[in-house]
C-alpha cells in the first residue's frame, strides 16, 4: 500500500506535534526526518491537522491526467459533501458543475449509505453481544491495530462507496467502453480504498480525489444550471452520526465520533462491560463524516447545512442484493513469534525502560519512552537520544 500522508522536508520545524497527535504511535523523528510507519498508520489525518508548519502533505493524484484513459467517466460523490453547500439550490448547481469537470455521470449514493446503515441496525437484533459498525475505514484499521480483542465484534459490512461503485459497474457492464470510476472523498481514510494509487486490486473504485482539491474548481464552473438531486434522509443522517435516530429495535445503538472519544470507549469495551449495548456506531472524525478533513466547513457549522438538506430529503433506501451488504474483514496476520521470544524481548525492553525517565515527553523523537526503549534494544538508537537524561547527566 502506498503512503497517503507524506512528509515534506522544507517547512518542517521538527516540532514533534504530529508525533504527539498520532493515535497509533506511527510517527517518529530520526536524523531530523519525520518517518511514518505505514503498517501502523490508520489514515486518520490527526498528524496533518496538528501540523502548524505545513510539513505534511496528502498525496493527491492528478486526476485530469488519468481521465483520458477512460471512454466513460463516473464520479461518486460522498454524502457528507452536503455540509459544504449553503442550501439545496446551491447543492444542485454544484452537482451540475462537477459534471463539467469532464464526467459523464455524477452519482450521489446517500440511498446506499442509508440502506447499509439501516441494515447494520437490523443485524444486531438477533445478537446478544456488542457489535461495532464498520463503515469508517480509519476505525476499522484502528481496531485491527490497537484493539485486536474487538475484531470479532466488528460487523462484516462493505463500505457504502464500494457498493455504489459496484452497482455502477454492474449497470454499465458492456456499455460505453472502458468505464472509469472516481470517488470524491471527504477524508483520507476513504481515499485509501481506491485501486489507484493505493494498490487495492479488488476495489471497484479506480481513482480517488479530495473534496478540497476540486471544490474551488467546481465553484468556478458553477452557473444557473441545476442537477436533479434525490437525497435519502437515512443516508444523510448517517454521515452526521445521527443514524441512531432511526433505531427502532430493542437494543440500544450509541454513536461516538472523534478518534479520542472512540479510543476511550474501545478501552472500556475491551473490559467486556458493554454487552447491554447493541451497536456502537464509530466515526474517526468529530460529528461523523462531516468532520472529514477535506471538507471546507467546520463540522459544527457544516451541521447547519446538513439540517437544511434533511428538509429536502425523503425516506428512501437503495435496493441491494444480499451479497452487496457484506464483506469479511481482512485481518492483520499475527506474528509467528514464540511466547518465549516475546518474553525475552519484553524483558529487555522493560529493563531499558526502567533506566529512562518515563515522562513520555517525546523530545527524543519517539512517541514515548517505551518506543525509545524498543529502538535501543534493536540497536537503532542509544540513550543519548533522551534529552532529560542528558540534562540530568550534565547537572551531575
Amino acid at each position, binding site marked *: 500500500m502506498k503512503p497517503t500522508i507524506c512528509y515534506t522536508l522544507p517547512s518542517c520545524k521538527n516540532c514533534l506535534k504530529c508525533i504527539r497527535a498520532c493515535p497509533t504511535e506511527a510517527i517518529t523523528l530520526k536524523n531530523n526526518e519525520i518517518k511514518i510507519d505505514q503498517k501502523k498508520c490508520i489514515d486518520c489525518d490527526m498528524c496533518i491537522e496538528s501540523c502548524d508548519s505545513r510539513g505534511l502533505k496528502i498525496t493527491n493524484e492528478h486526476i485530469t491526467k488519468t481521465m483520458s484513459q477512460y471512454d466513460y467517466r463516473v464520479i461518486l460523490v460522498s454524502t457528507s459533501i452536503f455540509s459544504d453547500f449553503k442550501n439545496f439550490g446551491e447543492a444542485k448547481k454544484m452537482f451540475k458543475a462537477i459534471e463539467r469537470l469532464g464526467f459523464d455521470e455524477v452519482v450521489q449514493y446517500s440511498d446506499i449509505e442509508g440502506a447499509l446503515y439501516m441494515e447494520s441496525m437490523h443485524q444486531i437484533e438477533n445478537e446478544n453481544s456488542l457489535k461495532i459498525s464498520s463503515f469508517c475505514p480509519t476505525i476499522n484499521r484502528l481496531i485491527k491495530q490497537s484493539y485486536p480483542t474487538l475484531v470479532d465484534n466488528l460487523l462484516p459490512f462493505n463500505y457504502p462507496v464500494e457498493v455504489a461503485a459496484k452497482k455502477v459497474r454492474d449497470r454499465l457492464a458492456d456499455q460505453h467502453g472502458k468505464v472509469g470510476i472516481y470517488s470524491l472523498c471527504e477524508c483520507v481514510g476513504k481515499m485509501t480504498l481506491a485501486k489507484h494509487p493505493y494498490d487495492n486490486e479488488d476495489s471497484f473504485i479506480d481513482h480517488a480525489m479530495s473534496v478540497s482539491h476540486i471544490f474551488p474548481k467546481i465553484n468556478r464552473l458553477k452557473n444557473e444550471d441545476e442537477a436533479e438531486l434525490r437525497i435519502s434522509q437515512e443516508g444523510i443522517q448517517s454521515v452526521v452520526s445521527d443514524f441512531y435516530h432511526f433505531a427502532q429495535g430493542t437494543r440500544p445503538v450509541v454513536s461516538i465520533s472523534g478518534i479520542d472519544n472512540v479510543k476511550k470507549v474501545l478501552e472500556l469495551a475491551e473490559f467486556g462491560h458493554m454487552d447491554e449495548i447493541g451497536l456502537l456506531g464509530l466515526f474517526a472524525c468529530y460529528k461523523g463524516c462531516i468532520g472529514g478533513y477535506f471538507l471546507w466547513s467546520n463540522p459544527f457549522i457544516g451541521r447547519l447545512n446538513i439540517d437544511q438538506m434533511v428538509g429536502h430529503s425523503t425516506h428512501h433506501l437503495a435496493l441491494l442484493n444480499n451479497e452487496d451488504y457484506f464483506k469479511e474483514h481482512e485481518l492483520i496476520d499475527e506474528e509467528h513469534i514464540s511466547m518465549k521470544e516475546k518474553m525475552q524481548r519484553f*524483558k529487555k525492553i522493560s529493563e531499558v525502560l526502567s533506566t529512562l525517565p518515563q515522562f513520555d515527553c517525546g523530545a527524543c523523537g519517539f512517541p514515548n519512552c517505551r518506543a525509545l526503549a524498543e529502538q535501543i534494544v534493536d540497536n537503532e538508537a542509544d540513550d543519548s537520544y533522551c534529552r532529560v537524561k542528558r540534562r540530568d547527566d550534565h547537572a551531575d
Partner: protein
Amino acid sequence: MIKHYDVLKDDYENAGKVSSDIKRTLKQLGLDTKTLRNVAIAAYEAEINMIIHSLGGDITFELSDEGEVILCFDDIGPGIPNLDLALQPGWSTASAKARELGFGAGMGLVNMKRVANDFHIESSPQGTHLKMRFSS
C-alpha cells in the same frame, strides 16, 4: 515480572486504571488475543469489586517467562459473608452509589470464574484473597 498496585476503598475516580495498565502491558508483550480478552475482563471485574466492596488492599500482576498471567487480589476485609451466594449470577450487595455509576450487576465473580483457567477464592472478615491464572 511482578507488579504491585495499591487499591483504596471507594476510589471510584481511579476505577479501572490498574486493569488498564495490565491490559496495556500485555498488549505490548503481544499476548494472544483470546487470553488478553479474558485477563482484561477478569482484571477489571476484580478491581472494580475491590473498590466497591472492600476496605482496600493490593493487586499483584505476575507474568511468567512462559507468558502465563497470574492475578492476585488481596484485601483487608470485610470479607464476603456467603461465598456460595456471591458466586450466583445476579447476586449483589453493591451500594446505591456504586449502582448509580453502573457497577454492581452481580455478575462479577461469575464472569471471572468463567474466563480464568484457574480460579481460587477464600474469604474471612480479615480479608478476601482471590487468585486467578490464565494461560495461552
